[in-house]
């Protein structure tokens, strides 16, 4: 059976008939799609358009209302979200399990710091101060590392791939720690890149505080990267990723070039990780090599699993939750008197926080495998199918 669908009589229409009608949307009929463009549109319903607009508006307004410390935390969440989107493209969409995300984040962070660093300072620096330049450069350099690693992925699957990428983290940590001229060495670290946008140093308080300005910068970057991620996911590449994830042999039979798409997946994912890394320590101003250890990789995986596998908005939700976790656990002593806020007592909030990662991952995998996005999906389906259940 051939897949070609014959369209009788429709082919000759364009020739003698006047200009054919442009596809239009009919009011009040959200599912009456008159062209593929409408159906595949990024925001294909009015509700989605308004919803996204409202969320962005609220996010842009937040810096004017929140305290600076909470704002810094949320800002970190936004940056982490960029990395989580990248990892989700790799794990969620393309199905390639990777524990090496921390390595690419590290590459991004050092690229940015080196590029933006003071040429006359203690550590390596080239004095490229404009943030957009070093953000993109950090992404590109990380992506190049992704290209180098990708050939391994085309030969390995599942657990083996996970172990190999795990090795990447250790190799990375060794290099970061030993190349002291660049990183400052373990326990000491170096200053992170200073964000300068069009000549304005965002770390200097002016009409707005540093945290406010950084939050807005992070928000802009996240919106751009999320849009990029969403578009990759719903395009030809995203569909190829999904095919590889669901069954690589079947995908190969269908004509999806496995090697090529695994390479693309690692490259894109690393690019996102690089961008994330370039901004991750901008708020704190200082970072050291041991931060790019296995824990960071696990945190990213937690964001993906808790947020929702193979969803962009889920990645953002997961990243924000993980970023806010320390803050949430620090509130615990008020409710649970036996939890101490002092690191010397046991159990203390830091131990609880680590335990919470694990507990959250286990709980989500058991009870809500689709993550936070799954919860949202459930709510949406409940009202979408109202007053029926299906």
């Amino acid at each position: 059976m051939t897949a070609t669908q014959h369209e009788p009589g429709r082919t000759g229409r364009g020739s003698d008939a006047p200009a054919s009608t442009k596809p239009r949307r009919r009011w009040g009929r959200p599912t009456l799609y008159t062209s593929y463009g409408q159906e595949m549109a990024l925001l294909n319903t009015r509700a989605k358009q308004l919803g996204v607009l409202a969320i962005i508006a609220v996010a842009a307004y937040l810096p004017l209302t929140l305290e600076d410390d909470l704002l810094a935390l949320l800002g970190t969440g936004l940056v982490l979200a960029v990395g989580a989107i990248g990892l989700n493209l790799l794990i969620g969409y393309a199905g390639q399990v990777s524990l090496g995300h921390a390595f690419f984040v590290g590459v991004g962070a050092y690229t940015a710091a080196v590029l933006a660093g003071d040429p006359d300072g203690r550590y390596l620096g080239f004095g490229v101060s404009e943030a957009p330049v070093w953000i993109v450069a950090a992404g590109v350099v990380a992506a190049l590392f992704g290209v180098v690693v990708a050939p391994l992925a085309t030969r390995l699957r599942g657990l083996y791939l996970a172990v190999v990428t795990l090795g990447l983290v250790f190799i990375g940590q060794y290099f970061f720690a030993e190349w002291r001229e660049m990183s400052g060495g373990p326990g000491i670290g170096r200053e992170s890149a200073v964000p300068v946008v069009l000549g304005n140093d965002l770390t200097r308080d002016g009409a707005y505080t540093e945290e406010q300005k950084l939050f807005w910068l992070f928000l802009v970057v996240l919106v751009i990267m999320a849009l990029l991620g969403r578009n990759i996911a719903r395009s030809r590449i995203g569909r190829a990723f999904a095919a590889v994830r669901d069954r690589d042999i079947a995908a190969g039979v269908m004509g999806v070039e496995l090697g090529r798409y695994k390479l693309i997946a690692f490259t894109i994912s690393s690019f996102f990780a690089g961008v994330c890394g370039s901004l991750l320590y901008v708020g704190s101003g200082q970072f050291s090599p041991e931060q790019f250890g296995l824990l960071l990789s696990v945190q990213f995986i937690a964001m993906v699993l808790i947020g929702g596998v193979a969803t962009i908005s889920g990645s953002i939700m997961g990243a924000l939750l993980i970023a806010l976790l320390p803050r949430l656990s620090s509130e615990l002593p008020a409710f649970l008197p036996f939890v101490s806020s002092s690191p010397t007592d046991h159990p203390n909030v830091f131990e609880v926080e680590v335990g919470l990662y694990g507990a959250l991952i286990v709980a989500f995998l058991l009870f809500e495998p689709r993550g936070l996005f799954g919860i949202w999906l459930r709510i949406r389906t409940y009202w979408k199918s109202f007053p029926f259940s299906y």
Partner: protein
Amino acid sequence: MSGAGTTTAPTVGTTTVATRVRDRAASDPTAVAMRHKDLGVWKEISWAEYWDTVLTTAHALLALGVESGDRVSIQCENRPEWLELDIATVAVGAITVGLYPTNPAAEVAYLLSHSGSCIHLAEDQEQLDKVLEVIDQCPDLRRIITVERRGIEGRYDDDRLLGWPALQQLGREHRAAHPGAVEARMAAAQPDDVLTLVYTSGTTGPPKGAMLTHANIAFGLKTVVEEASFVDPPAGPDDLTLSYLPLCHVAERFFTTWYNAGAGTQVNFAESIDTVAANLTEVQPTLFFAVPRIWEKQLATARIKIDSATPVKRAWGRFWLARAERTGELLERTGGNHTLGSRLTYLVGWVLFYRAFLVRLGLRRVRYASCGAAPVAPDVLRFFMGVGVPMHEVYGMTENSAIATANRPGRVRLGTVGEPLEGAEVRLDDGTGEVLTRHPAVFKGYWRDEEATARTIDADGWLHTGDVGEWVGGTHLRITDRMKDIIITAGGKNVSPSEIENLLKASPYVKEAVVVGDGRKYLTGLIGIELDTVSDWAQRRGLAFTTYADLAAKPEVHELVAGIVKQVNERLATVEQLKDFRLLPKELDHEDGELTATQKVKRAAVAATFEELVSQMYAVPGGAR
């Protein structure tokens, strides 16, 4: 809008459906004429494109040597090509003959040979095989046009076959060589010319071809679109309809092809009869005509979905449906007019429930809904009135171009088919109570059947409909039954079986009901269960079953239906009560000759097929409980 055709009419001749399409293409070329779903997307066809294809197709018919008065037959599911070939045929002065896609080969042979069709459109391989099987019995048939290519191209070696693209190519060549040839034919059309043969489905005997003329259609359109417009504002280019009933049936033809040409409504073709529910929710039509079967199915689906919803939704749904039932009863008393109280209740309900409910059923935007073509239980209509669908029962038949009576907004009387339309005379025969109609849309006669024509139209021009009716309140007509279906029991009582059957069919679990008892001591029934709902019911009770026959044979199912029969019996007089019933072991089917193409039960055929079940009910002494 439709005035464009009538004002220019004197200079170019008779207004036909073809000139209406042409004039609309000239006045509003980019407006949407129809949509059809292709690979998941609703492709739009503008009026200009529609007319362009019609013109090319008409030229192709000329190239194939179609003369005025020749017959062109179409056996095809609803799709743009049906309308395009139909209008093209009318444009060249030929006569369209529609066949049901479900017509088996034997019926195809009869219809093609009886009509003397010279060009036949067979949609796909299935329809083509039917024609080729019986082509020796159709001496007049010269060419067969096919629309779908799959399974046909390269596999059939027959000079008479012509694919749709080839037909268009033929038309383009002829159009270039003879510009204006089609227009000349259109200008020559006379009001009295026949434009279509509509074969009646024939519950008894072979189908008869009713000849409808341009004047018939013109009167019909004038009545329902211009004069007695049942919606305000009148139906126009902003209205959407869903086309899914067979186009060869006069009701769908009227509502799709002629209405589209006359009022400019946008036709949306459903993918198939099985996807009507899904297509309804996509299209959300503003004008919706359905046969009772569809309304019954919608009602059953809604009830089942509410019953199987989560507890909170279920309670919520039941609460509002109970309110709707009260509203429906109120509207029944007031003829469809809200009181202040009911309007307020409905307003609150609309926000909290009915709006979402109607969206899910695809009826949210419906501003005029009608039911006709077969008898319907008032309960079904009341339900839809209650939830806010402006529901109207209408009455008409092939022989009067579907123009007779209709319930009007604000003057609805449930259980009746409404008041006579403007310009239509309706009266009851003094002796038999038969409904007689007389107006300019009464057909010209049966094709090649003078005798049947004489029996149907009397000397004064009255059409004998064959339906028995009575006046309710002096204004509204109630149809009792088909004359030949009236059961006279051994006790001499006249009983109308369809009323009892419709009460039974109002239950979501009953799909078919056939009441028997002509010349017998008491009435009994053959009942067919609705597979969807009963299997759902059985599953929720953990009742295992394999096939339809197995399910119908379950004692639990028998008990379920017995409960429904008991409820119905309570509402009937003693002579009308069913003393016994049997469940049909199979679904009734057109192919097996138990249903007509319009899904009406052929009583005689059913009674004959299930003779054994019937005799059981009368043989067993304990049958009469």
